[in-house]
């Protein structure tokens, strides 16, 4: 009897699994837990690097994600911009993902223009999208002006005071890449940091964190925001809680559900295998 139930469970319609997942992740929206993560070394290194830059430093930001990875990386993009603004640094922002320009423009307007009241062209610049992936990264090492003749709004770079004197990577104190995949942090490490002397920080989708950990360990990355948890730690560090911290409750529940499913699935598997063996 018990065995047949377990055998049925092994072939359970996956829609029940879907439902369990949905309930677990959605429940914290109705019953708040208010969890906040503790800072981990890669996130602390990310935060510290921006903190120690002299105020007014020019920072090159490449935000490479799309609506599909927005949930994880938009909080990072917003927090990075906030932190840069809080420290009085001057971001020059671009993207290599063709569906990113609108998402990033909204963040820039919300943070730089509305929240901090900074002046476009003087305190921050949005270069927009350039297609070409690695080719763009290397081309910017020679001349940002020939790669980006105008900014996102069609203004020639010469008319933007912040771009005055900007030639290539050497005009920047730091490169920050928020990356959902290809092209992103791996390519910036391969084609930019090992070619042009510019320190780099990365905010990465958690999927790529294990791989980028090797770059962080070797010093090719000076700091690493590790997925949504890293984004939440970073929000806590800069003192501006946002969506990433809100997400921590659902995150916790979701992890528990997956852990449960792995253990439970294997338990059934082994019990069934043993009973089959006896039979």
């Amino acid at each position, binding site marked *: 009897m018990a065995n047949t139930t377990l055998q049925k469970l092994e072939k359970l319609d996956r829609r029940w699994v879907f439902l369990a997942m949905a309930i677990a992740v959605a429940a914290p929206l109705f019953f708040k837990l208010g969890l906040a993560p503790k800072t981990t070394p890669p996130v602390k290194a990310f935060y510290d690097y921006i903190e120690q830059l002299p105020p007014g430093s020019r920072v090159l930001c490449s935000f490479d994600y799309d609506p599909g990875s927005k949930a994880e990386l938009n909080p990072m993009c917003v927090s990075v911009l906030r932190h840069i603004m809080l420290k009085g640094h001057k971001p020059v922002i671009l993207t290599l993902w063709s569906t990113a320009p609108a998402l990033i423009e909204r963040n820039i307007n919300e943070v730089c223009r509305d929240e901090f009241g900074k002046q476009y062209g003087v305190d921050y610049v949005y270069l927009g999208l350039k297609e070409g992936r690695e080719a763009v990264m290397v081309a910017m090492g020679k001349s940002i002006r020939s790669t980006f003749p105008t900014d996102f709004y069609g203004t020639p770079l010469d008319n933007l005071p912040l771009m005055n004197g900007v030639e290539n990577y050497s005009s920047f104190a730091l490169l920050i890449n928020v990356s959902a995949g290809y092209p992103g942090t791996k390519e910036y490490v391969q084609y930019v940091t090992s070619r042009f002397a510019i320190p780099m920080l990365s905010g990465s989708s958690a999927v790529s*964190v294990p791989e980028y950990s090797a770059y962080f360990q070797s010093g090719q990355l000076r700091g690493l925001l590790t997925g949504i948890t890293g984004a939440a730690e970073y929000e806590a560090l800069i003192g501006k809680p946002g969506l990433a911290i809100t997400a921590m409750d659902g995150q916790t529940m979701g992890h528990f559900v*997956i852990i449960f499913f792995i253990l439970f699935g294997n338990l059934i598997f082994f019990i069934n295998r043993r009973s089959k063996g006896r039979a």
Partner: protein
Amino acid sequence: MKREIPILITLVFGVFMIVQFFIPHPAVNDIANRLQNWAIIVISFSYVLGSANILRINGELVYRRAPGWPYKLVLVIAFFTMATPGLILGIAEGSWTNDRLFTFTYVPLASTMYASLAFYIASAAFRAFRVRTWQASVLAITALIVMLGRIPVSHFIWQDLPGIVDWIMGVPNAVAQRGILIGAALGAIATGLKVILGIERSYLGRE
């Protein structure tokens, strides 16, 4: 003519991309930079080609009244709903395409597509994640520790857990990733060189 010129073009572009790394002299670097900027433009065209191809294929299906053509028609209509006002009025903030169409259709559609992966990962965890070998058990144990250690309640479970996960990520994981990176790099370098030198030409197809 049909094979030699493409191989020559690959050689020229490939060689300049390599030598510009070693030769800083502007005589070489300026040409390499120009070639790069050309490549950026051609790549951009290739994306438009991709879109045009989607349109062509689906338009044809609608024209032929192929099975499921009404859906293809939805696709074609969606294309023009985005592209027409987008090309005329622009896609910056403040435009209809961006503030309405992109924000309220593209963004939720794309993010939900990716979000549904959470369900598949759950179902895969339950139905496909089987610890049948010792390799899989090492993988499973690490995965469980990492998942537990990366949630805000981890230090309640065991105070050292977050630190252990930091160590796993920073040491054994980094070592494994490094090994893979080095191995993959060698493969990539070999293939890259062979493509440039015209030894590897399967990308050209068969004549």
